[in-house]
């Protein structure tokens, strides 16, 4: 380390190669910082809770084909039977599966009338088993009563009277009221049709994971009279495999003129829903690794080249008393200097690129904790890359100082 001054001055006389490596480090750091930021931002999205008991849930699809198919009868007896199965905790018919990217949305407003402000929400139709099957807790008010549940079909236009809202939706409708105060309030659907809020549930995601109001969901006490029907089943903890088997077996052995199709676990639904995000993360990681390797190779190349060019100089230094460790430390120090310039440029670059991403793609702002981490990473890559060539430089014999090669 006693050589910092002369190393720096010698470096200033060979700026081009060093500057190219510094730029490479800067670009790599800029991309790495923002890539990790994107990876983590995706991770945050993927890590959001759906509100469900995903590990124990699955859905199964039933499609009636018989001419005399009686949907309400089949649905009610299916659910009655499924709920009796030993590995099943609870089950409901539901119109949309959370995270599946398919479902229904409606607008709710606190004042009746066309043109009033309305708040978008996902709409789930369930019976009084909905809360338990979904694994959603009430934080105020109460659940639907069995007597409130009605069947609707394609042509039904009006809505049941009572609804249960997520806390996020309730807060967005009534920002100034507490959950207990919100219970009993009236909201309007389809501009003018009043609904009474009977309960507030803690959390339930809408089916669309990319939706800005993904936490806006409501339950209405409906079942859907249609030959096409989906049951969401919640198994007893750890018994999903058995439950799937038992539910399928139970449904298939009933001769009611329908086919049992498409069983999918909620774990699978989540994976499908975030497949694009996982792929993006994998691509970004690949880019990071490849860039690090390219940078390391660039450093290896530059240092090897400069060592070959300076063989005689290294031999001379050895002849003048440099120990092997001095030669090592010369190249390590030189490398830290070059990397440091790159890292400083990299900080500026990282922030600039992030500002551009924030303004162009509405991405979250960079957390500054990434910067020191990336700096250390770049220094480590630099030292790692320079180590081998520096070790070889230290092996250069002092005798070459006098040999005319």
């Amino acid at each position: 380390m006693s050589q910092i001054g002369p190393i720096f001055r010698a470096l200033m006389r060979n700026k081009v190669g060093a500057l190219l490596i510094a730029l490479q480090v800067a670009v790599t750091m800029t991309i790495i910082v923002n890539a990790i930021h994107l990876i983590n931002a995706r991770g945050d999205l993927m890590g959001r809770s759906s509100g469900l008991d995903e590990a124990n849930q699955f859905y199964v699809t039933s499609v009636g084909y018989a001419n005399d198919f009686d949907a309400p009868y089949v649905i009610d007896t299916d659910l009655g039977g499924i709920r009796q199965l030993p590995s099943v905790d609870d089950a409901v018919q539901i119109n949309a599966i959370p995270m599946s990217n398919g479902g229904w949305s409606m607008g709710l407003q606190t004042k009746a009338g066309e043109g009033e402000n309305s708040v978008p929400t996902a709409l789930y139709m369930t019976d009084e088993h909905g809360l338990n099957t979904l694994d959603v807790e009430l934080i105020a008010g109460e659940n639907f009563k069995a007597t409130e549940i009605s069947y609707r079909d394609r042509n039904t236009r009006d809505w049941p009277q009572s609804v249960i809202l997520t806390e996020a939706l309730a807060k967005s409708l009534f920002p100034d009221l507490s959950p207990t105060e919100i219970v009993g309030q009236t909201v309007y659907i389809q501009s003018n049709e009043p609904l009474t809020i009977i309960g507030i549930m803690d959390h339930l995601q809408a089916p669309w994971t990319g939706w800005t109001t993904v936490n806006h969901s409501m339950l209405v006490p409906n079942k859907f009279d249609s030959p096409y029907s989906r049951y969401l089943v919640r198994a007893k903890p750890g018994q999903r495999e058995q439950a799937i088997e038992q539910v399928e077996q139970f449904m298939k052995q009933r001769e009611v003129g329908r086919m049992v199709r498409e069983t999918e676990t909620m774990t699978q639904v989540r994976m499908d829903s975030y497949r694009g995000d996982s792929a993006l993360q994998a691509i970004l990681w690949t880019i990071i690794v490849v860039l690090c390797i390219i940078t390391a190779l660039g450093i290896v190349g530059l240092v090897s080249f400069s060592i070959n060019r300076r063989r005689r100089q290294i031999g001379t230094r050895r002849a003048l008393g440099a120990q092997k460790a001095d030669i090592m430390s010369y190249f390590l120090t030189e490398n830290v200097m070059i990397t440091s310039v790159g890292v400083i440029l990299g900080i500026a670059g990282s922030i600039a690129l992030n500002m551009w991403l924030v303004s162009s793609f509405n991405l979250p702002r960079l957390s500054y904790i990434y910067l020191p981490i990336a700096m250390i990473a770049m220094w480590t890559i630099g030292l790692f890359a320079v180590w081998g060539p520096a070790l070889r430089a230290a092996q250069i014999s002092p005798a070459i100082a006098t040999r005319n090669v």
Partner: protein
Amino acid sequence: MLVMNNITKVFRTETVETHALKQFSLTVNEGDFVAVTGPSGSGKTTFLNIAGLLESFDDGEYTLDGRSVKNLNDKQLSQLRNEKIGFIFQSFNLIPDLNLFDNVDVPLRYRKLSKAERKERIEHSLDVVGLANRMRHLPSQLSGGQQQRVAIARALAGNPLFLLADEPTGNLDSKMADSVMSLLEEINQSGTTIVMVTHDLSQAERAHRHIQVLDGQVTEQKRGAPELATVNA
């Protein structure tokens, strides 16, 4: 203070063995100015490299300043080179990216000297070679003779026991060679031991002693009177 006894050095490559030094014996005393001549390939540089601890040898004894160097490790050898030996090379071997001050500083940096002391030594030794006013110049801005003077200043700055010079004037024209030669004589007169390889017999005459290396051995050794050297100058 430099005693070599039956030193043997063999270079082995895949196909050939070169016996560069065979039973090479030589004693250099304090204050000596020894000129080494001999045909190309006779082993002069090999002798100088071994004397300067740049190269190991296969057999024999080498005692430097009363200490056998045979079993020293690389670190100890580096320290000895740094503290006891000053090197002067045929092609100067200055570091092109460093100015004269930093060049002379190179060996001093490998010792634990204070910054002030290094500065004083650098300025003094550049003064001795007459280049104190060019300290911030780069080697490429100097003539060959001046560059060799810087190399001599670098060798002197560490206060070595002796200077080893391998054809120090080999790359210089006769005028510059003469001035470098005079500088070496001055340095020797102020007490520094010098061993110098040269192919120039008139220079060899100017040294106190003139030895000849032939086929890896010291074959001829004659003492020249210091007065003779002065007459020839």
